[in-house]
């Protein structure tokens, strides 16, 4: 039986339901010490040093500062701007200044509390709108991480002009397992790093310059959620554990407490987006001008790439002859923002869909009819000039609206919906999402995959980590299908950089689509190698194995091959931005509590093009999990900063994510428009479900109570305030 398209139960299911799976905090090397971090109390200042409380017993405490760094003080990512420990200057609140190691986590935290950071405050830039070219320099000479312009067509003002400004705040990934890492000294004077992460090879590259050598191997522990938050930040923990381990000569474990994790680690980029559009009286889009200002925080991290994806989605899945997009990502004295599921697209899609509603409202058209009139079709071009094929905007819209015709059964936990103090509304959003890396990203990364025949089973060696998205199950399905064997005979090898090839990072949802494709090639190469070895030309894997004269392991490797189909120019930002696109439509039904401003979700319907669902249950899980993060982004997840840029709602009591009582029942429809470059047609699907919920909710609130909200999140306070303004006017 072909295992592709079947709901194979997760390979990691049994160990996870038993509680056996080993997450980083479950691992305790002999003689392990515990690390903790001393952090900057202010946004910007001259770092004069640290002062240890003379009344504290320091006898069993090791302290590390930037002076202990063996080579270069950097955690390397795209640029070399971010130090492992601040040296001379602090550029954001909670910036790591020093480290301590002790025999217990409590003792380490006590030591941190007895270290005073001596700083002389300097004026700080916290507002991204005043950051560019601010005389107070944070990054480069102009505080700009990246600036991009995309232009298609000329300009016109001949039509109805609609303008709008859309504002989105930070969002926390809120993996339930906090960040954690262990460094263990190796016999060769190197280090093994074990931790919760998405990208083991990132860490190797990030900390080698700091160590001054490459004697590092990185092992992924079972990882309790990532969502982008464990893409780049684990490199910082790895650097810190490494420094403490070098100084103490012992294994060192660091597990962030939740409040520290919330205050110090990366978030989704806050953004301000302005759109000015020109439409014909009949509702055809004639021109679309959009600009985004994105707050990158104090260091570059992955911000340029996030800006890029935001800009490439700032047109929506709509056709328009004139599109002019401008984006700038700036530096502020706030904790760096970074990767988070959707990677810039949720900010852009929210603004685009809000603006589509604004146009429909202005010209008096039904919002769905207006979208249907303008949605992008085969042969239409994107702002970068990419001619699209196999578009699915119309299909997902139709399927979602059809599915939404089913009666909405309001959960009994929501009282008296639609009457009295509750107003009822429905909203629709239509989105697209570029799959995989931008432009020539895959060709540059050249992801490698090995497969190894061991006895009669096959092991897959990749750096593509399972962070809950199911790759330990779907990869064996892909390989088993290619080899024509049962999926139980194929498994993913542990992700240890000493053992597996670099398949590229587990980000941007290309794992299944791109690495899965390389895996399929590798599996076919294994079969070909067996055919060559045995001299048989049969496709039957077991016949080939039976014909072998020995049982020696056989390993083959495949590498991503650029088929030349992508024509992308990074200098001019023109051409084929993504190898393919996914399409999705969200239909949300909700009640607004007129007394409290609270939004009660009744039901969430989505239709999403996934190319091919390798494992439908896993795909549904991705779509539903992304949806709930989007619904949280819409109404309850708000990061509140104080005058130093410090997150003050740094607990789960006041940074609110949806619970079972907030989450609606969901109807999840999978559409399969195959992508010829993906294994069995699969596309990346991890991020697209994050894009649609927030604008659909805004639209539904507008339908329910007639107020227009153009800022995320739409908290009860903001909804209530808008209702009061509406009543007064």
């Amino acid at each position, binding site marked *: 039986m072909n295992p592709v398209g079947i*709901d194979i*139960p*997760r390979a*990691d*299911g*049994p*160990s*996870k*339901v*038993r*509680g*056996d*799976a*080993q*997450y980083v*905090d*479950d691992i305790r090397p002999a003689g392990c010490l515990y690390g903790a971090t001393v952090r900057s109390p202010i946004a910007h200042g001259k770092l004069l040093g640290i002062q240890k409380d003379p009344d504290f017993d320091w006898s069993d405490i090791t302290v590390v500062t930037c002076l202990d760094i063996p080579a270069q003080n950097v955690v390397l990512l795209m640029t070399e701007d971010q130090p492992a420990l601040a040296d001379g200057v602090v550029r954001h609140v909670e910036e790591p200044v020093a480290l301590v190691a002790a025999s217990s986590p409590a003792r380490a935290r006590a030591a941190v509390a007895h270290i005073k950071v001596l700083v002389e405050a300097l004026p700080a830039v916290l507002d991204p709108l005043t950051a560019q070219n601010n005389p107070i320099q944070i990054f480069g000479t102009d505080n700009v991480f990246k600036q991009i312009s995309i232009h298609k067509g000329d300009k016109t003002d001949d039509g109805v002009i609609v303008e709008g400004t859309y504002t989105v705040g930070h969002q926390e*990934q*809120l*993996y*339930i*397992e*906090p960040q954690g890492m262990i460094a263990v000294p190796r016999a060769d004077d190197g280090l093994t790093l074990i931790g919760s992460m998405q990208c083991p090879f990132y860490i190797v590259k990030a900390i080698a310059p700091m160590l001054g050598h490459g004697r590092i191997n990185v092992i992924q522990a*079972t*990882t*309790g*959620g*990532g*969502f982008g938050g464990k893409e780049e930040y684990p490199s910082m923990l790895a650097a810190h554990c490494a420094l403490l381990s070098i100084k103490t000569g012992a294994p060192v474990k660091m597990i962030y*407490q*939740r409040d520290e994790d919330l205050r110090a680690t990366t978030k989704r980029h806050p953004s301000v987006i302005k759109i000015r559009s020109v439409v014909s009286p009949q509702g055809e889009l004639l021109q679309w001008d959009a600009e985004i200002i994105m707050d990158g925080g104090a260091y570059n991290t992955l911000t340029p790439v996030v800006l890029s994806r935001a800009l490439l989605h700032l047109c929506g899945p709509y056709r328009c002859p004139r599109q002019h997009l401008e984006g700038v990502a700036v530096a502020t004295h706030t904790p760096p923002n970074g990767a988070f599921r959707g990677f810039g697209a949720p900010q852009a899609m929210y603004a685009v869909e809000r603006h589509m509603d604004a146009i429909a409202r202005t010209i008096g058209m039904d919002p769905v009819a207006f979208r249907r009139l303008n949605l992008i079709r085969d042969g239409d071009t994107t702002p970068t000039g990419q001619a699209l094929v196999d578009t699915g905007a119309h299909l997902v819209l139709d399927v979602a609206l059809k599915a939404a015709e089913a009666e909405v059964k309001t*959960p*009994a*936990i929501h009282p008296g919906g639609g009457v009295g103090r509750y107003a009822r509304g429905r909203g629709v959003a239509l989105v697209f999402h570029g799959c995989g890396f931008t432009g020539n990203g895959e060709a540059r990364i050249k992801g490698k995959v090995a497969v190894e025949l061991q006895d009669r089973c096959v092991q897959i060696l990749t750096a593509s980590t399972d*962070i*809950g*998205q*199911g790759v330990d199950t779907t990869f064996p399905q892909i390989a088993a299908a290619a080899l024509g064997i049962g999926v139980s005979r194929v498994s993913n090898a542990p992700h240890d950089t000493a053992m597996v090839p670099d398949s590229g990072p587990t980000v941007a949802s290309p794992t299944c689509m791109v690495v899965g494709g390389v895996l399929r090639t590798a599996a076919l190469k294994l079969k070909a190698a067996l055919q060559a070895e045995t001299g048989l030309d049969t496709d039957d894997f077991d016949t080939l194995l039976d014909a072998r004269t020995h049982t020696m392991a056989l390993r083959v490797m495949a590498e991503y091959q650029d088929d030349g189909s992508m024509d992308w120019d990074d200098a001019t930002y023109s051409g084929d931005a993504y190898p393919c696109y996914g399409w999705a439509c969200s239909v949300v039904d909700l009640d607004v509590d007129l007394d409290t401003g609270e939004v009660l979700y009744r039901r969430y319907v989505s239709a999403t093009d996934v190319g091919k669902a390798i494992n439908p*249950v*896993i795909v*549904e*899980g991705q779509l*539903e*999990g*992304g*949806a*709930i*993060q989007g619904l949280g982004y819409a109404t309850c997840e708000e990061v509140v900063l104080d005058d130093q840029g410090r997150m003050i709602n740094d*607990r*789960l*009591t006041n940074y609110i*994510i949806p*619970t*079972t*009582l907030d*989450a609606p*029942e*969901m109807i*999840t429809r999978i559409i399969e428009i195959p992508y010829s470059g993906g294994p069995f047609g699969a596309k990346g699907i991890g991020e697209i479900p994050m894009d649609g919920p927030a604008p659909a909710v805004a639209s539904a609130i507008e339908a329910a109570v007639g107020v227009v909200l153009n800022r995320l999140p739409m908290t009860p306070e903001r909804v209530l305030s808008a209702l009061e303004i509406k009543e007064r006017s």
Partner: protein
Amino acid sequence: MTQFSLNGHTTSVDAPPMTRLIDVLREQLRLTGTKEGCGEGECGACTVLIDGLPVNACMIPVVQAEGTQILTVEGLAEDERLHPIQTAFINYGAAQCGICTPGFVVAAKALLDAQPNPSRTEVREALAGNLCRCTGYQKIIDAVVEALGGQP
């Protein structure tokens, strides 16, 4: 010394009375299936049953466990045979990253014992103290309703 029954076995621990139960379980007894997600009783990843009721082990000083019966995720399966809730979690795809899963299956066990045939709303209410960031809860609720013999 504090004595209690842990997954059916009489257990004594020597810990200061205000030691958090989660630390006793994880660090002293090395039962690491009980997870810590927030340390303040909000996420439910450390849910265990004390005398059949779900509690957050991060909020319970060990002294309060004296003389009680504690069930952790490690006590759910009988030998190699998974509890029906565990099987349903696998079959329905209710575990993704899995860090919240032990807390959910333990909380669901409490519901199963108290209410053999709950509605979906009752399942939602019973699991409202457990946070999951991966699933959107749909598959978890499906799994629990199925494990309890209802129709998802």
